[in-house]
């Protein structure tokens, strides 16, 4: 049986009757996020079967709704009410209301597209954009930057990044914060400075050239703050582990802006993932030794073919490209 942890195991754990070996199995099993859902599902079931007591729920709900009402009153009125009150309406209004609801739902679901503007780059494309507040951002290939259509610079300066970008942020007279949010468990908060952010599925990286930035790092449920100095490089691996080190040449992390590539004992494996991110190419390697080889050097390449030619020369291997797949072979 390939299911090491059963409901029986979990029930024993909830009741405090688990052997150390079973506990180890359980710990490994919990690494899988879907299993954590199962954990709480069975915890709920176990609590229902072994309730310590039955709490009075109707009264509690009434109290809770009263707390909700009280809290709602303290909130400023918001256009397009956040909660719909349930009530009795005459039937003839129902259709009108349903229509209205549909429109509002549409607006609500499409609110991101209405309220935000997205700038995207294709594979191999590098794009420079001036933001309304005077800051500039250079977006690397296969990246997305989202910023509010209205009020950027006056109310707040917040952008969302997926991919890689270099920012040159203008310091405002009122010391307004500039925030870069990512999907990678971290946000970058700055006043005015130059830095680059890398946020892709395989990890995250922030390099600071000038000024000072604050990194809000939030793996899981925790939130940590980290202040970076010029020359600091913070990287996050796929599993959310954070590392800070000094980067002697921070500018190499901005080299891509000039279509320049800098490799320092960079493994072929890493280059393969760079090719995937930047040009959308899937790389396969013939021969195991090839993956372990490294490349050092700097070169310029404005498209995938130039890149492939140089890399093949550096590695002294041959390659064959077919649409979006590349094969390297000895």
């Amino acid at each position, binding site marked *: 049986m390939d299911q090491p942890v059963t409901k029986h195991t979990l029930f024993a754990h909830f009741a405090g009757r688990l052997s150390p070996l079973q506990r180890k199995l359980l710990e490994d099993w919990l690494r899988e996020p879907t299993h954590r859902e199962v954990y709480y599902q069975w915890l*709920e079931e176990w609590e229902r079967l072994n309730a310590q007591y039955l709490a009075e729920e109707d009264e509690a709900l009434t109290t809770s709704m009263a707390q*909700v009402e009280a809290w709602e009153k303290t909130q400023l009125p918001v256009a397009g009410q956040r909660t719909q009150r349930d009530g009795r309406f005459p039937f003839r209004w129902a259709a009108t209301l349903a229509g209205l609801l549909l429109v509002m739902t549409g607006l609500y679901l499409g609110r991101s597209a209405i309220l935000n503007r997205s700038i995207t780059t294709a594979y191999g494309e590098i794009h420079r954009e001036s933001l309304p507040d005077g800051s500039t951002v250079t977006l690397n290939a296969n990246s997305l930057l989202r910023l509010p259509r209205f009020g950027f610079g006056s109310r707040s300066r917040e952008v969302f990044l997926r991919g890689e970008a270099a920012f040159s942020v203008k310091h405002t007279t009122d010391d307004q914060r500039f925030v870069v949010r990512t999907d990678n468990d971290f946000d970058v908060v700055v006043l005015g400075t130059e830095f680059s952010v890398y946020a892709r599925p395989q990890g995250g990286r922030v390099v600071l050239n000038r000024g000072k930035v604050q990194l809000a790092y939030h793996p899981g449920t925790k939130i940590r703050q980290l202040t970076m100095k010029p020359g600091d490089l913070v990287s996050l691996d796929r599993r959310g582990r954070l590392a800070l080190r000094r980067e002697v040449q921070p500018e190499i992390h901005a080299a891509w802006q000039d279509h320049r590539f800098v490799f320092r004992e960079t493994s072929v494996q890493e280059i393969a993932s760079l090719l995937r991110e930047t040009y959308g190419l899937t790389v396969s390697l013939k021969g195991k030794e090839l993956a372990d080889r490294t490349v050092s050097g700097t070169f310029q390449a404005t498209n995938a073919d130039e890149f492939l030619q140089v890399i093949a020369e550096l590695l002294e291997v041959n390659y064959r490209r077919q649409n979006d797949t590349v094969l390297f072979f000895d």
Partner: protein
Amino acid sequence: MSILPSPSDEPSRPDPFQPGEAPRDQESLLTDTEWAIRLAFQTSVRTGYELLFKRYYRPLCSQAVRFVYSKEVAQDLVSEVFLNFWKNQAHLHISTSYRAYLFTSVRNRAYNHVQDEFRREALLGIPTDQPDDALTYEDPQQILQFTELYNRLEIEIRALPPQCQRVFVLSRFEGKKGREIAEELQISPKTVEAHMLRALTQLRKALLTGLLVLLGFLIGG
């Protein structure tokens, strides 16, 4: 006779599971059980909230009370979690099921409560500034340690002398006043006080050493 309801003292119930039975459909099961609540949230946040509350309030209180040993505190903790769910419009943000969010948040708060009560330092080596509400999952180690914390508390309370245990449960779990307990058990108020002091000292000591041993064992193993 033990005052505490014991999980294993329920022979009348049919065995809810077959030992060794593998839950083959666990994933499809998971996505389905909350769909009605999810749907309700889409049309009316209030209806969704009410359904959510009715569905999970009781098991959450039962879970919380294992940590805090007071019905009142447990109910307050659970209500706070629900109120925060509303305030943050958590149904729009969570990446887990409602169930996982609610249980995790209640356990976080319960942990913070126990820790405030018994020790100033972190009990389990888990940072003291444990955020109250969880939008994503905790790590496996922490999930297990939270469950083991209430297991530990139960073991310690069961280990107390019977009279001391009775006083503790009446005082904490039922929220009875010292005088009421003295009357009910026909002992002097001073004795009630002494029992409470003993129970709390014992728990504090056990949590300190017991969990260190537990932690050492985990790291060593």
